[in-house]
Structure formats: structure tokens, C-alpha cells
């Protein structure tokens, strides 16, 4: 029994995707290092492959950079919010230990990454069929289509991960209202940090008139929200 539970079992990803709450709740009760490793592998490969497909349009080097950056954002967001998320759960009525809240969030990101990984061949095929990235291509319909498909896939992956997280929390806490409160709080924190990390680690798709680089020279100048505020100011001043 012990041997079986300690094996790295890729079928567990299927259980996660199906939302088999009994098994998921049991996993959260007893967390194994090998299961953690499996989830990390899925996040690194799933999100990495999708990132590579996304960055390939600009340049193979950009593909490599985005393949590193995508999983990095997920892992840094999880790690950066581990304490606050662990504290918010009991405060909002879900009395679970920090380890369980971390595991639950990691599971939701694992689901999202598995979906992203599954869609990476479709995205790669789309990029392969797109005309090379140029100022004309960026101002045309192709760029808009690629952006739109990216948004749709990432939104689908993110929402599915969160739906499963909500179901897990409702099962752990026995109340949908409590689960909803905790989920909203976690989402707010993760979105807040995740947006800033994405801002620092930009570019992802890249721009034809800018060099391929891991960080922009202005990566640590300003922040995401400041930029949104400035954009809004420009819109209203014009």
C-alpha cells in the first residue's frame, strides 16, 4: 500500500482533471513528496511547452525564454502567496493547515498547466501556419487572432483549475459559501502578484521591432498597476 502511494503515477493527473473529489481530498490529507514532484513536473512541462509554442512566432530563442518564464510565473506566484493564502483560509472559515492550502493551490495550477500542455500542439500548429512576425503582421488580423486564441486557451485553463479548486475547497470545508470566500481571496492575491510577475518577466509573444531578450531593460522600472493607471490617464486626457 505504502509502495503504491509513493510511486510517481501519471494517471493521477487524470484523476485531478476529472475532479474525483474523494481521491483529491485523500491526497490533501497525506501529502507525498513524489506527488509534489509529479505536480511540479506537470507545471514545468505543461506551461513550458505552451510558452514555447507562444514564443516561437517571434524567434526560437524567444520560445526558450517563454518556456522558462511561463512555469516560473506559476511557481513564483504559488510560493509568493503561500503564507498569506494559508493564513486567509482559516480566517475566512476554512480551517485547513498551511500545507493543505499550498497543496490545493498547486493542484489547481497543475490542472491549468496540464490543459495548457495539451493545447500546446494546437498553438504550435497555429504559429507554424502564421506568416513570420513583422510590423505588418503585428498590425494585422493574424496577430489579433493569435492573441485571442491565447487568451481563450489561458482563460479556459485558468477557469477549469479554479472550478476544481472551488469543488475541492467546498468538499474540505463542507460549505460552498466558505469555499467561495476563500477562493475569491486566493484569486485576488494570486492575480495581484501574478500580474506583476508577468509584467517583470515580459515579453511573451514579443515584438518584431524589439530585440529578443529574457527581460526588457525596463523590467524593474514601474509596475503593472502603474502602467494601467498611466494608460487610463492617457485615454481620458486625450
Amino acid at each position, binding site marked *: 500500500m505504502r509502495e503504491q502511494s509513493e510511486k510517481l503515477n501519471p*494517471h493521477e*493527473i*487524470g484523476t485531478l*482533471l*476529472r*475532479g474525483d473529489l474523494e481521491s483529491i481530498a485523500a491526497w490533501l490529507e497525506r501529502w507525498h513528496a513524489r506527488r509534489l514532484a509529479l505536480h511540479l513536473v506537470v507545471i514545468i512541462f505543461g506551461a513550458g511547452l505552451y510558452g514555447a509554442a507562444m514564443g516561437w512566432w517571434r524567434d526560437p530563442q524567444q520560445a526558450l525564454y517563454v518556456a522558462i518564464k511561463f512555469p516560473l510565473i506559476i511557481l513564483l506566484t504559488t510560493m509568493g502567496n503561500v503564507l498569506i493564502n494559508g493564513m486567509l483560509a482559516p480566517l475566512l472559515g476554512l480551517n485547513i493547515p498551511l500545507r493543505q492550502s499550498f497543496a490545493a493551490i498547486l493542484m489547481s495550477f497543475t490542472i491549468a498547466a*496540464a*490543459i495548457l*500542455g*495539451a*493545447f*500546446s*500542439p*494546437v498553438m*504550435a*500548429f*497555429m504559429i*507554424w*501556419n*502564421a*506568416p*513570420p512576425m513583422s510590423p505588418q503582421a503585428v498590425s494585422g488580423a*493574424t496577430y489579433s*487572432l493569435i492573441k485571442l486564441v491565447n487568451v481563450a486557451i489561458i482563460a479556459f485553463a485558468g477557469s*477549469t483549475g479554479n472550478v476544481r479548486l472551488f469543488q475541492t475547497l467546498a468538499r474540505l470545508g463542507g460549505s460552498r459559501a466558505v469555499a467561495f470566500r476563500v477562493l475569491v481571496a486566493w484569486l485576488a492575491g494570486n492575480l495581484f502578484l501574478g500580474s506583476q510577475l508577468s509584467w517583470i518577466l515580459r515579453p511573451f509573444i514579443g515584438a518584431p521591432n524589439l530585440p529578443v531578450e529574457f527581460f526588457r531593460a525596463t523590467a524593474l522600472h514601474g509596475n503593472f498597476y502603474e502602467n494601467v493607471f498611466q494608460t487610463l490617464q492617457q485615454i481620458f486626457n486625450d
Partner: protein
Amino acid sequence: MNEQNPIPQQIPPRIPPVATPSGVLQLGDDPAEGVPISNVVAAIDAILRHPRRVMFQLRQPNAGKLIVMMMLVSVVCSLIYGVVAGTFSGGDQLWAAPSKIAAGLMISALICLPSLYIFTCLSGSQARLVEVCGLLAGLLMLMTILLIGFAPVAWIFSQTTDSLAWMGTLHLVFWFIATIFGLRFLETRFSHSNARSHAGFHTWVIIFLLVAVQMTTALRPILGTADTFLPTEKQFFVSHWGDCLKATDNELKSKVRE
């Protein structure tokens, strides 16, 4: 030893298939579905006449052989159909069209396999990856068998018409009909998999159709001719088809003027 047993051997009565409360028979309830599919002919016969037998066999532990058989049939049938498609232009297209059609179908299936598995899991189905691979192989086999059925019609038209747009449309219509039947096979299996919703499956169908249709543009020319085996310019299928239709329209106008 030589004495005959005076008691006649009792044949156990056959248990009638049990239907679920919804009236749908579960896979394997019919004893005929349990008969193993041992060769290619049996596989073709089963997918056309008893698709539930294929579905049941794909659930069994030794489904690998059946999957390989179905893939083999798909490749052979798509190659044959490709030769027929290639007869429109002749020459190099006699080998280029079959290789592109067979490769295009296989690559499309490979691209869409991970998302099919994900959607199958998300819908709550207990299907394993091997079974999903088998179902996709079944979809390809049924599609390509049907294409073989259409091949004589396609060949007659390819010998009598010069219009690329017309032939392209005809092949697309045949492919579309074959795909609908293939997808129906897949959806039937989906209905037997305890899936909570078919929304994911329907989304996947759209993805599969888009990928397959785009593949025809990515591997062009399949019917016409070109200097290179693969296109030098990248295009999405909508703009490619638009260009083809414009070219045909111009051709028609110039013919009318003459």
C-alpha cells in the same frame, strides 16, 4: 473412457442484455461485443456494422493490437484516396498527394490527441489514454474507409473537370461527410463513458475540424501543382480559400470574355 456420458451437456441459457434505467445498453452487455477482433477485415467490418464491439474491445487490456491495425488501415486507405486525388494533376502529385493526405491526417490526430484526452477527463469520463488513442484511431479508420467509398466518384470528376476550386470543394464535401460519421462514432463512445457533459467534446470537435482544415492549407498544393513540395508562404485557410475562389472567378471571367 469410451463410454458416452448419458447425461446431455447442459447449455447455460443466454442472459439477455440488461438495459440501464435510461434504456441505453452498457458496453459489453451484448455477448457479441466480447468477441475479439483478430484481423484487419474484422476491424473494418466491426467499425461499420458493430461499432460498439470496437468500443468494447478498446477497453480490454490487449487493445494495442487493435489500435495498430486501425492505424494501419487508416494509413493505407488515406494513401489510396490520395492517389485518386493526385490523378487530378497527375505527375508528381500521384505520390505527393497521397503522402500529404496520409501525413496530414496523422499529424492532425496527433496534434488533437492531448486536448481530446483532457476534455475526456474534464467531462468525468474514466477512459484511459490508451482507449482515447484507440477511439481516435477508430475515427481515422472510419473516415478513411468512407473516403475510399467516395474515391470512384472523386476519380470520375477528376478526369472530367479542370476546375481546381470545384475539385477542392468536392473533396472537402467528401471529407466532411466522412468526418461527421467518424465523429458520430466518437460521440457514441462518449455517451457510454459516464461523461457529465458533452460540451468539452463539442469544443474538441471544433478544434479538430479547424486543425484538419488548416492542414490542407499548410500542406498545399494537394490537388494543384507547385514548384516546391511544401508552400513557401504561410497562410490561414480562410485567406487561402479566398485567394483560390478569386483566382477561379478571374479565370471564369476571362473565359467569358474570350
